[in-house]
């Protein structure tokens, strides 16, 4: 089981890193999401893998370490919020810069096209 989980984490990380290196914002966000899944799994695994063991001391002879489970919960919540924020930011950058390149220019040397629509005062 350890080998399988390690393999899954490795695949998630490598896909995440590959997507992170793309030049458009949406693949980058997907890459970050994959990376955070890999990290969450990694945290969980660091409490050691046990089957059929409750995370409560005293209910049986075998118990799982509850702390990584609490940590992973915190990490999931934070990662989720950050992804949502990043999506909104990417949309705003798309609106303000006129394209979805991470550097804000469609290609090197090419001038960014006009913004789609200027933001209103109360939107900022």
């Amino acid at each position: 089981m350890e080998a399988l989980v390690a393999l899954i984490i490795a695949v998630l990380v490598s896909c995440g890193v590959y997507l992170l290196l793309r030049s458009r914002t949406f693949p980058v966000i997907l890459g970050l999401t994959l990376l955070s899944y890999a990290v969450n799994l990694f945290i969980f695994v660091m409490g050691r893998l046990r089957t059929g063991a409750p995370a409560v001391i005293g209910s049986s002879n075998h118990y799982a370490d509850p702390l990584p489970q609490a940590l992973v919960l915190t990490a999931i919540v934070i990662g989720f919020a950050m992804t949502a924020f990043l999506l909104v930011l990417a949309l705003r950058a798309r609106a303000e810069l006129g394209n979805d390149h991470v550097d804000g220019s469609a290609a090197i040397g090419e001038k960014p096209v006009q913004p789609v629509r200027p933001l209103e005062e109360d939107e900022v």
Partner: protein
Amino acid sequence: MNHLIIAPILLPLITAVVLILLSGHRALIRTLSLLSATALMGICLWLLLTASDGQIRLYAPGNWQPPFGILLVLDQLSALMLLLTSVLAFFSLAYAVRGNDAPGDKLHAMIQFLLVGVNGAFLTGDLFNLFVFFEVLLISSYGLLLHGRGHERARSGLHYVVLNLIGSALFLIAVSALYGVTGSLNLADLAAKIARLDQADAPLAATAGVLLLVVFGLKAAMAPLYFWLPRAYAAASAPVAAMFAIMTKVGVYAIIRVFTQVFGADAGNLANLIWPWLWGLALVTLVLALIGALSARELRIQIAYLVVVSVGTLLAAVALNSEAALAASLYYLIHSTLICGAMFLLADVILRQRGELLDHIAQGPRLRQSGLLGALFFMAAIAVIGLPPLSGFIGKVAVLSAAGTAGDAVILWLIMLGGTLITLMALSRSGSTFFWRTHERIEPAAAADKGALLAVIGLLACIVALSLAADPVLDYAQRAAAQLQAPELYLQAMHDFQVHQEADHEREQQ
């Protein structure tokens, strides 16, 4: 337990929530925000006076006996950082309340949330809460950086957010790997367990340690991870950029805290894990940042590179890994935070009087208040370059005399003295262009707001005070460094710590 230890986290948190609820009452928000910052400064001063007796104070919010549960630690270093943060926050807010917090009225709430994160990161005693407080300060800083409008903010904001999210992922990997190896997250407990680490587990813990260096290096803007900083800081609005002067120092603080306490001299197989790496990286940071400052075409970009210069100097001093060098770096840290904050505010005052040119370093119209602003710029430049008599000079002398002249330290002498000359050239170029090489025409701009000017002058006054009080401050820094270099003190404090026990009569009542 001393309940005031948690106040630097709670006070900005409560203020921020109240400020959000008050949305729409701009005058009230400004007053409350500034009042809260003043109160925070008072509390932090009191904490500093309390901590200066050399005792390490712990606070367990969940009332669990450490090393379990959440733990806040107040020692001399964290008290110093707290006071520094609150002083900088006060002057940044004092600048913001003079009409520099547009658009909307959310800037104050976000700055208060930023303070929650920064203060929490300085106070926390365990690695996972360091991560959580880092996230709190990061998400507020994302909001602050993007506050307002503009292409440049959206572009540099995107880079900043993506980079920091990657940093957070690496931080989590490092933290959980350390937990997997040692079974602890408490810094003092972690130090004890790393010292007795099994030979077979050492490579994994070392990997986690180096990953932590990458994460903190990203926050501190260490080469090669500083490329996001100049554009982001230059694009931010003035009070935000001034406030961000403390953000790189949070990274430096985390490096000092984790790598002297956990991977310090007593860490067995992993003793002094990163100092050789940090030394080289710090020198590279210094050189690259100096080149950046020299080549900058805008004043704010130039100041942002000066922030990176200060980080390079600090990290080089920290990498020397001696008590004297650590003390010198703490003094330099206070100086560079305050002066960079002042420079960002001053740049904003200057660029408002230059019309279309803003802060481009090019021949432009004469400034309306050329004399006053020129004098302030001159003084700030002297401090940031490190010329006598101001604190930059004292800090650099302290760092260099702590470095000595043996072996590698000579390189630091060369780079720092050469760097002083380069900074002098860079700032002379911008200063003489702004104030002397001007057209006859005066740009029809409003005179600078008196309150905003007072905020700049206040920060510069802090620099003067820091120079005059160099002896007691250096003395305090020396004691803080000595405390840091003795990790067994933390373990002892944790061992002696008693959680609050329910008294007998309380239990009977239940």
